[in-house]
């Protein structure tokens, strides 16, 4: 592998890693702060993708679709938290696993009834429909660069939010000890609703952003869900910084694994997770 090839593969790793981060961030927040295991997180990703498909179809603008879609997802997240998830914070992980597993079934059925079982495409917006030539054969699509930028901005935004704002402080307090935080005057109920809605919106946003690249099809959520959990666990539950590090690690392992060790490519990420957990049983950056 020559230098140019190596650098491009590195770029591929980072881009994939950042997308994973977008999805994992929401999961780690929900998990870390409310302690809720949400297997249906992949369904939110799928929801975003299908929303992008439906809304772009109606208005012919991805940007508008993403905007409205994000708002819709926040609303849906808020509603789901209020009606269902709120009552499960104190329940065991097992109950949450079961609940969210049932939800996956329901979401997939709803998707089937609303939008059918076909594979759909979402067009890349005209503005970003060009490529940069990296070598004489290979180009890098501008849309992927755009995603790279957006994910980085979101990552930075999240870090600033959690680490440097008052709201972030409340969120961290709630994660550390929700009863104490409540006693100190934090409206924990509102906080949880906010974090949950944010988590759902992040996942949906991920789905919306990737829709032009990946197409929209049934069960697309389940494939990404396991990767998400792997990232969250490697990074340490509740840690956004951990999720970022782990996502980039997974991106590297997945990309270079496919090229250098294709025989074991499928197992590599799991081996990584197993190795990390054996040395740091609570992830890299446990809060």
């Amino acid at each position, binding site marked *: 592998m020559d230098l140019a090839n190596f650098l491009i593969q590195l770029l591929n790793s980072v881009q994939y890693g950042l997308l994973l981060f977008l999805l994992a961030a929401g999961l780690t927040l929900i*998990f870390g702060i409310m302690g809720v295991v949400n297997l249906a997180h992949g369904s939110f990703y799928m929801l975003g993708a299908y929303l992008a498909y439906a809304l772009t179809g109606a208005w012919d603008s991805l940007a508008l679709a993403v905007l409205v879609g994000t708002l819709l997802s926040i609303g849906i997240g808020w509603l789901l938290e209020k009606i269902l998830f709120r009552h499960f914070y104190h329940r065991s*992980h097992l109950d949450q*696993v079961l609940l969210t597993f049932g939800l996956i079934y329901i979401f997939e059925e709803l998707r089937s009834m609303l939008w059918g079982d076909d594979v759909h495409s979402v067009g890349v917006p005209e503005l970003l429909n060009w490529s940069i030539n990296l070598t004489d054969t290979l180009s890098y699509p501008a849309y992927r660069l755009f995603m790279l930028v957006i994910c980085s901005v979101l990552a930075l935004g999240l870090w600033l939010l959690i680490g440097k704002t008052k709201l972030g402080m409340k969120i961290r307090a709630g994660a550390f000890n929700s009863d104490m935080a409540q006693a100190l005057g934090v409206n924990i109920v509102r906080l949880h609703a906010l974090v949950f809605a944010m988590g759902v919106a992040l996942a949906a946003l991920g789905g919306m952003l990737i829709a032009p690249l990946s197409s929209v099809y049934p069960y697309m959520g389940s494939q990404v869900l396991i990767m998400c959990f792997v990232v969250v666990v490697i990074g340490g539950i509740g840690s956004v910084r951990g999720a970022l590090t782990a996502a980039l690690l997974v991106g590297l392992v997945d990309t270079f694994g496919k090229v250098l060790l294709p*025989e074991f490519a499928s*197992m590599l990420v799991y081996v990584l997770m197993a190795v990390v957990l054996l040395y740091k049983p609570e992830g890299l950056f446990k809060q």
Partner: protein
Amino acid sequence: MSAPLAHLEILPRSVHFLLALGLLALLAFPWTGQDFYTQMVTRMMILAIFAMSLDLLQGITGLVSLGHAAYFGLAGYVLAFMSPADAAASWLITLPVAILASALVALVIGFFVVRTQGIYFIMVTMAFAQMLYYLFFDNKGLGGSDGLYINVRPSALGLDLENKLVLYYFTLVSLVLVYVFLRRLLWSPFGRTLNGIRLNEHRTQALGYASFSYKLTAFTLAGALAGLAGYLWGVQTGYVNPELMGFHMSAHAIMMVILGGMGNVAGALIGAFGFELFLHFFKDLPTVGGFDLGKHWQLWMGSLIVLVVIVAPQGLMGLLRPRSQDD
């Protein structure tokens, strides 16, 4: 987060009565109906053994595993490897070997996995199961993604498992043995220690119990029993594939155990039968007014699961609990 609660370790008399009745029904069943239903009940019994093995790990010891199917599927593969292309293997040999293989792999994986806690434990068990899954999926020599056939079912001591009736009673005997064994275990000193670990590991450690070796033993034992179920599955279907070790199979087991109610072994048994019955029921729903109810079985099944978690958090067994009893 709270550890999973086990309930109703002392089974009320009503449940004893129910189980006895169930046993009678199972003994008599093959004589009452079609071949197909005998096979269906055989499958349910196999899944019940699988569920009970998970209950040992999850309900009794408090270790939630998302990778339990690895030991289930592995045993089926061992049978496939040991079965000659056109003759029957001996179950007297292949069954112990399969169980031993599952136990061994569970021991090795358990050694690494049992040192983690909570959600990390859940994820690491899943990771190892996925690794095993891909090992078989990616390797044509191990059958690859299409799996392997078991062409002739095992036989020994005059009991030919090719005969569906023989297989039924063979499975029933296994089911009863596993149930009795686990109930005994539950109330043995070993079982009490596992319970203690589930309820409060630190306190149990403070009392002088080396929780690691207890947990590892439970993990290995659960793996061995899952292997028994997986072996029987391989015998019944005559076909094994990597999905048997996969995430969905593990999740299936968890759902059966939770549906029934954890920690008392009887719940897992009831949960397995209940889950399968519901699944069959939903899938066979007719078309009403142009709406194909059966086609949307996932919606009904998902709603049922959600309903159970909300309304009956301790599973079906929990519904039998008298109001006064606390846990």
